[in-house]
């Protein structure tokens, strides 16, 4: 098992290297002069030259990539074209709100969606199951910012239960921190809940048809213990997988949710960087998020070996 874990950890290295190559070479697959593209339409030739110089775009591709990779490995993501600050510093300032939002959403979504899926599978075919599945279809179809605006309109503007927008750091107290994040986490969580609930239901349905579940029922175990102890444990692998894959949805959704609720996180940083065509910042954020995504899925792969001891690689 230790060998497997080690091999799995090592296998992320080529994946991250290739992600790096993709993110870096994006600038060069675009038609036209990358420096001119970044500078925008109103740039003077001097501006373009300055950007070319600062990004080192006048050297051969492989030299550039090598130097960029070397710097990136040393946690240096370059300098922002717009603010002239190091990208790592800009990301460092913005990372807390985004991580808070994503962590809260993750916890909340799992706590809500897994029982939803379990109940839907238990009551399969009834109105409970149907309404949960209907919710799941809606959760997939209504975009995150639409849910965000609806929730903000009802619960912040009309009912005044939560602040409309903004963010309070966790160091200013748990109460304000939570109350600012409730609505963003709810809107960001919807599609994620739909996804997990759906997979949980499917996986549970398969397990509930097994003989040992019937045995457990026959020997008089309570419904709850059959569902959550016997069945859910064995239905866990696909659920955990989809939780990992769904992190990508959370990351993408966070960018938008932060715009709707004016949270000064990485999403806002990305949006501002797009508007200013600040490519080093975009590169840095994409790389960081991909790294988080790969890391989470690595952890989940390792978790498999504990969830299902039969898994051997």
């Amino acid at each position, binding site marked *: 098992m230790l060998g497997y874990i080690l091999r799995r950890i090592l296998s992320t290295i080529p*994946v991250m290297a290739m992600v790096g190559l993709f993110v870096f070479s994006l600038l060069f697959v675009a038609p036209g002069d990358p420096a001119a*593209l970044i500078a925008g339409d109103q740039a003077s030739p001097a501006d373009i030259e300055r950007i070319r110089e600062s990004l080192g775009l006048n050297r051969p591709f492989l030299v550039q990539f090598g130097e960029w990779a070397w710097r990136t490995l040393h946690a240096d993501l370059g300098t922002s074209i717009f603010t002239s600050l190091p990208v790592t510093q800009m990301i460092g300032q913005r990372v807390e709100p985004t991580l808070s939002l994503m962590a809260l959403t993750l916890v909340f979504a799992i706590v809500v969606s897994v029982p939803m899926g379990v109940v839907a599978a238990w009551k399969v075919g009834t109105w409970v199951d149907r309404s949960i599945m209907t919710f799941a279809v809606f959760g997939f179809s209504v975009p995150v910012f639409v849910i965000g605006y609806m929730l903000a309109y009802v619960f912040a503007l009309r009912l005044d239960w939560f602040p409309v927008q903004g963010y309070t750091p966790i160091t200013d107290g748990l109460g304000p921190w939570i109350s600012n994040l409730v609505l963003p986490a709810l809107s960001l969580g919807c599609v994620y809940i739909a996804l997990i609930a759906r997979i949980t239901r499917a996986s549970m349905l398969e397990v509930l048809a097994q003989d040992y579940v019937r045995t457990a029922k026959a020997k008089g175990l309570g419904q709850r213990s059959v569902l959550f102890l016997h069945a859910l444990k064995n239905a866990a692998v696909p659920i955990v997988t989809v939780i990992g894959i769904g992190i990508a949805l959370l990351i993408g959704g966070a960018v938008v949710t932060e715009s709707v609720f004016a949270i000064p996180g990485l999403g806002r940083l990305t949006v501002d960087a797009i508007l200013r065509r600040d490519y080093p910042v975009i590169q840095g954020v994409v790389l960081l998020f991909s790294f988080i995504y790969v890391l989470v899925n690595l952890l989940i792969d390792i978790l498999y070996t504990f969830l299902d001891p039969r898994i051997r690689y």
Partner: protein
Amino acid sequence: MTLASDHRTPPPGLAIATPLPDILKKVKPRTGFVGFLRRYPTIAIGGFLLLVLIFVAVFAGYLGTVDPTAISPSRRNRVPSELYWFGTDMLGRDLYSRVLYGTRVSLTVGFCVAIFASIGGLAIGLIAGYVRWLDGLVMRAMDSLMSIPPILLAVALMAITRGSVGNVILAITVAEIPRVARLVRGVVLSLREQPYVDGAIAAGTRTPMIILRHILPNTLAPMTVQATYICGSAMIVEAILSFIGAGTPPNIPSWGNIMAEGRALWQVKPFIVFFPAAFLSVTVLAVNLLGDGLRDMLDPRASKGH
């Protein structure tokens, strides 16, 4: 006919029992188009909604709309009324017209991405699944591409190109291709071991012919379902890209753009955001319902689990 009537004549010397009362309801086989729609209600609902939206997109110019880009400063921020059904935005443009014309952008992006991503993913998946020595390399590349969250990949692609509908389609397609490729490859890997493929190889069929005739047709069913879901998610991604200013250029009325423009005023004029949001949600819902129905229809075994 004569056979049936012969059956009913009692043999001589035998009393026949009185026919049983007709308590069993006659099973009406669901045949024909209507029967098909009743059997797959999600296809009926999703398909109907989608047809209405396609109609709206095609005939946007004839549905009581005005020029969606016509600015009229004296009529800014009007609330919905008889004259302006959805109200007007901060530049005095008619929202009803803008939202209706926006249907065109969303449907175009959704359909194009679904088609292009399917073709691209199909080609890569077929090659990776069938050509063993390429499999490892190609799938590692696809895994890496999938490690970049799709919206961020599209954002990064849009940041280095000029905003246009074509580039939006291209960016989302690139982000979606790995998922299709992985699906197709999985199907191909299991198909390759089928006896009929062995049979075709033994009969001396050339590889391209095997792929074309024996492998490809079997990937089409799961692909169609996947393409439908891609269509829905592409519409959402397009709206998100436009909303954060990295998508369709602002001079083209798309739902994401209308919402982005309504953002500054949404606390006082929520309808500017509401109407495009409602249209977008209904459109994606229609596409997803259609996808669920197609999945039930094309893979009856899988549908039991979902």
